[in-house]
């Protein structure tokens, strides 16, 4: 074992660093998915499309800013702006025009409708951005790299992936927990999650809360995509890959668990990353092996409490 570790220190280090960055992105999407499910009680397959459109929009906006001669740091503003725009425009549009019509309907119908929406949005992406890879890595290159010591080796790793991605994810985790547990709007969202009928009996505008929550969740997915855009070439299908992993995170953590989703994102992100470096043939299945193993032992998820907590 010691010999194996000595021989593979560099790869292990890379796997850990990559896994951390990947976990941060998955968390952003999974936590939004979780929040939306808590209030709407709909498993929204189209959540992955919001990630993809956020990514493409951020890349396009960043390229537009660069073409317009704006300073390089404007690329970071493009990431945030794209996420906010996608959340603010697509969020209300999807909730009002599609999801509002299927609240309280059978789960099969809800899944079919959100899957159909996902397919439509996939084609919309191809229509707008084509099928050729889109790349805008300036925000990542701009910050450069840092040498991370790992045993006797040094791993040069991008500051963007080492600090920005986990930093934003951590800020989202802390901010969301504070928002939901301390603010009036957050407590109202949790109240609607706990008991929509009682909230309405109290005079709370549940429709408004639903719209607000979905828009917020959509913006989180889009922010995940926007932050991911400098780290990879964008191709059709990134939304599908992300939503499936996010489902794995949410199911493994337990529905409604924010901190649990963070830890599970880390577990699944690291698991996948280790597989990429040491057993690439298992890369795709490792997250689901983790999920199935957890659900066999704890059907409510690692951190879930049966039928009590939803946000």
């Amino acid at each position, binding site marked *: 074992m010691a010999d194996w570790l000595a021989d593979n220190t560099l790869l292990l280090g890379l796997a850990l660093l990559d896994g951390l960055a990947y976990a941060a992105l998955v968390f952003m999407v999974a936590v939004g998915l979780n929040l939306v499910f808590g209030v709407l009680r709909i498993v929204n397959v189209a959540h992955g499309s919001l990630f993809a459109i956020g990514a493409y929009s951020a890349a396009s906006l960043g390229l537009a800013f660069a073409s317009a001669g704006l300073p390089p740091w404007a690329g970071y503003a493009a990431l945030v702006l794209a996420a906010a725009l996608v959340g603010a425009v697509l969020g209300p549009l999807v909730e009002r025009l599609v999801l509002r019509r299927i609240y309280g309907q059978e789960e099969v119908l809800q899944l079919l409708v959100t899957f159909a929406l996902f397919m439509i949005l996939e084609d919309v992406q191809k229509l707008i951005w084509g099928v050729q890879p889109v790349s805008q890595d300036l925000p990542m290159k701009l910050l450069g790299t840092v040498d991370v010591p790992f045993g006797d080796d040094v791993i040069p790793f991008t500051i963007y992936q080492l600090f920005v991605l986990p930093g934003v994810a951590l800020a989202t985790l802390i901010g969301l927990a504070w928002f939901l547990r*301390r*603010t009036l709007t957050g407590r109202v969202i949790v109240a609607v999650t706990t008991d929509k009928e009682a909230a309405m*009996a109290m*005079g709370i505008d549940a429709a408004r809360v639903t719209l607000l929550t979905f828009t917020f969740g959509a913006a989180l997915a889009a922010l995940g995509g926007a932050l991911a855009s400098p780290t990879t070439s964008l191709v059709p299908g990134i939304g599908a890959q992300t939503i499936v992993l996010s489902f794995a995170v949410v199911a493994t953590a337990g529905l409604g668990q924010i901190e649990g989703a963070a830890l599970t994102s880390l577990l699944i992100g690291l698991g996948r990353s280790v597989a990429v470096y040491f057993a690439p043939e298992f890369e795709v299945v490792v997250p689901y092996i983790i999920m199935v193993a957890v659900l066999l032992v704890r059907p409510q998820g690692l951190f879930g409490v049966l039928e*009590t907590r939803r946000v």
Partner: protein
Amino acid sequence: MSASGRPGDEAVDRPRQGTAPLLSARGLRLAFGGVKAADGIDLDVMPGEFLAIIGPNGAGKTTFINMTTGYLRPQAGSISYDGQPILGLSPRAIVARGIGRSFQLPQLFTEHTVLENAALAIAARAGLWSPLAPLLRPAWRTEAMAVLDRFGLAPLAGQRADALNEGARKLADIAMAVALQPRLLLMDEPTSGVAAAEKMGVVETLVRVLREAKVTAVFVEHDMEVVERFADRVAVWSQGRIAALGPPATVLKDPAVLRDVIGIEPPTGPPAGLPARESGHA
């Protein structure tokens, strides 16, 4: 205690005879398939009164509450509150008019503390939704504590709602409804699930608070002792219709009510007959 001997009577506006009803239902009809949940309900609720609704399961008692609070829409009939029609309004709009309700199962927000539950009701009433403002702002905290104190719940303010016993849950549920400052409160079985030993204490507390707050109350109840002690009038529901209506002292002695609703054989003797419906009330 007043001459009538009812708890909380000291502070009450007694039902004002001769004044306009606060709630008025006329000809309400609603059927679920072949089951008539409301089959021509006519009922007036007078300001300040406590009206108990009794009847067997499936008689349409909860349906009446659901129709009045906007959760169900009758197929025929009308409902007016304070002289204004309210049929077709959303539950939220009806709450805003001043009609509160509590459910058979307490609808507390179990993720919240008791204090937060009351504060949420105050926030809902105030209609303020500033995104990052705290829920427990000083004014709302003070008011929420005052409401809880009236129900004897202040010592439990910091507890999560799911940690309360059934009696406290019922009181907290109604405290939330009172925090909305309704003029009319409809309660669906406010004592169901409460242990026998604490039932009277729970009812006395809620009647006292509601009387002090001058809230008119309609409550569905199965415990005849509660009805007899606390209701000004009692309406007997049967197969979607009001079979009898009047003071508990009269209605609860009616042999048909004793037999069909309470489930005991009436004492033998001269037939008493159904009490006459009070004119002007229903």
